[in-house]
């Protein structure tokens, strides 16, 4: 496409053409209105003048007779810039006046007409046009008084010329302006296109140029930049994940392979083979779990799970998870407690449940108090699940009194596959906190890791459902009423 072709194809240019057409139409109709009104005004003026003169001449004739009439007409006809006068006898002979010739038949019609004429003293032999009135007097004489229409014609010409010029100016300015605007827009769009091409070619760090005017293109560019930022972050995340997957899944796969190989090499009994196969299945189940968790995180992070959101109480989630994990904690020598207050949220219940479950599993696994810490507090082996509302946030937290996570490691701990030194020896995929964090992010919240002095408090911070508190508050009020 040529540069000009590109230019006239821009929206700015096309819009300009539309406006141009509209403005030209507007100017033309304005001028037409003006011209028509002026013409009417001039005609009115002529009519009035002619009527007055006919009145005057008639009254002179009535007072002074034919002689007076002839004198008056002769005088009036000779005045500079005079009107047209003609007096004819009943036989049609011209008696006085300044009209040389008329269109045939004009004198025979009484009243107003427009006609071509020539003055007696006209040098050029061209016809002029005039608006005339013919009146018959009582003696059968006919009197014509009229006025040249040149003035009206000239005025019309001026208006027509003005129309031509103004339309020309509108068109020239319009097209010029259109090209200017289109070029400006095109220039910026071209800059954006260039950047997007670079980005498409693989350079995700490129950003669109943002001007200072804050106009719609700047806002678009800002939004696109934010989008690019997010895409870049996702891509980086993805790359990290695939690196980590490659590394962290290789280990169990290698182990799996070695075990199978070992079982084959050692020609043992059927029971040995059976045991080896069972271990293999166990190990692959673990791998599948890891994959599932990864998929789940990917889902949550990409926002695909947004479809399944509904309104529920975070307290129910806390109670449900408490009920599910309480026996497990007890078997592990811990006590699992739950403390809930109405916590209205809008979200994916399944994912939030899983996130809280992950936090509880972590607390059971890693939240045992350090043997060395003295004196041991009474509630050291207690894990607390808590759901409450704080302002416009709902907090779902799990607190343990284990060694906790040093402040410097907390950000790191949320990353995929990260298993802090202390936990390396325990089974687990290293994905629990990542999933909880991804779930929080999906809901527009975050996962906060804090210090429980000693221990870890992991909190899912979720936005509270607007308006939900009233309904729930009303519900809690109902309970004592029923009891009473």
């Amino acid at each position, binding site marked *: 496409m040529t540069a000009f072709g590109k230019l006239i194809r821009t929206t700015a240019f096309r819009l300009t053409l539309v406006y141009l057409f509209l403005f030209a139409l507007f100017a033309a109709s304005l001028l037409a209105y003006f011209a028509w009104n002026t013409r009417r005004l001039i005609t009115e003026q002529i009519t009035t003048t002619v009527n007055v003169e006919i009145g005057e001449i008639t009254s002179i004739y009535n007072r002074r007779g034919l002689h007076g009439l002839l004198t008056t007409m002769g005088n009036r006809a000779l005045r500079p810039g005079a009107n047209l006068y003609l007096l004819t006898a009943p036989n049609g002979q011209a008696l006085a006046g300044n009209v040389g010739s008329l269109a045939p038949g004009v004198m025979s019609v009484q009243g107003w007409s427009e006609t071509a004429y020539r003055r007696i003293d006209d040098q050029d032999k061209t016809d002029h046009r005039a608006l005339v009135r013919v009146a018959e007097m009582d003696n059968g004489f006919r009197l014509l008084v009229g006025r040249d229409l040149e003035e009206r014609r000239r005025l019309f010409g001026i208006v027509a010329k003005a129309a031509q010029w103004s339309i020309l100016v509108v068109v020239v300015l319009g097209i010029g302006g259109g090209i200017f605007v289109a070029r400006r827009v095109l220039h910026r769009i071209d800059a954006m296109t260039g950047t997007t091409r670079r980005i498409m070619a693989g350079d995700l760090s490129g950003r669109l140029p943002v001007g200072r005017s804050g106009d719609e293109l700047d806002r678009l560019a800002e939004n696109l930049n934010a989008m690019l930022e997010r895409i870049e972050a996702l891509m980086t995340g993805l790359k990290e994940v695939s690196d980590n997957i490659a590394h962290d899944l290789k280990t169990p796969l290698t182990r799996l392979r070695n075990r199978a190989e070992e079982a084959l090499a050692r020609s043992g009994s059927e029971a040995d083979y059976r045991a080896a196969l*069972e271990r293999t299945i166990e190990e692959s189940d673990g791998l599948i*779990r890891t994959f599932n968790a990864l998929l789940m995180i990917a889902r949550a992070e990409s926002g695909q*799970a947004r479809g399944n959101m509904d309104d529920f109480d975070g307290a129910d989630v806390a109670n449900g998870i408490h009920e*599910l994990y309480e026996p*497990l904690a007890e078997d592990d020598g811990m006590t699992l407690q739950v403390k809930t207050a109405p916590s209205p949220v809008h979200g994916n219940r*399944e994912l939030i449940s*899983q996130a809280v*479950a992950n936090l509880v599993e972590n607390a059971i696994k890693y939240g045992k108090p350090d043997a060395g810490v003295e004196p041991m507090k009474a509630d050291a082996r207690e894990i607390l699940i808590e759901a409450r509302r704080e302002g416009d946030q709902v907090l779902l937290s799990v607190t343990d009194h284990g060694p906790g996570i040093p402040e410097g490691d907390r950000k790191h701990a949320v990353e995929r596959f990260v298993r802090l030194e202390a936990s390396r020896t325990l089974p687990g*995929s290293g994905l629990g906190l990542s999933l909880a964090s991804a779930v929080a992010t999906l809901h527009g919240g975050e996962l906060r890791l804090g210090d429980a002095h000693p221990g870890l408090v992991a909190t899912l911070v979720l936005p509270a459902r607007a308006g939900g508190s009233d309904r729930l508050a009303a519900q809690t009020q109902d309970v004592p009423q029923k009891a009473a």
Partner: protein
Amino acid sequence: MTATAPQMRILIIEDDRESADYLVKAFREVGYIADLASDGEEGLSMAETGDYDVLVVDRMLPKRDGLSLIGSLRDKGNRTPVLILSALGQVDDRIKGLRAGGDDYLPKPYSFAELLARVEVLSRRNVGPAEETTYKVGDLELDRLSHRVARGKDELTLQPREFRLLEYLMKHAGQVVTRTMLLENVWDYHFDPQTNVIDVHISRLRSKIDKGFERPLLHTIRGAGYMIRDGIR
């Protein structure tokens, strides 16, 4: 399955040759009749003409995808239980599958033990005492209306969740019930706990219903799950 029971007929609609052959072989080994269709159209016509107890349908199939196949079966009034197999294992996919008319949903990869247990629970041949108000296994009795559980002459006190766990197990007495099935049906969670959380609940239940009795009723089936039944394996 006992030898006298009529053989269960299963239709597997799966386009991946290798896993389809594996499934057919595995189902035949446990004594079922298993037929195979390798695309959606073939599967639909076989499902319509054959008298099957359960259909195992892969979600992504050539010619006609699994969900549309189920939809068109259901439109024609065919109520054969359907288990959907899918590589898309997430919650929303499961909901989509069940909404389309599937009865159960199993994400790939799955263990055959899990699939078998689910197929047996789904099968029309094995419609248990679903509508009965009391379940009975050996001398263990569970009253669904009064929420009373008794073993022999002893009244047992169960927590509400333990009651529901036992209720589900007894509803499917004689059938293997996997951990995931329990988590889904008793707790209504569809995620995958990294720990043996279900085992702990089972062992608590077991201590209440089997402890002190000569004959255990709640059995662990290795590599699969649990089963409640009277008598030795």
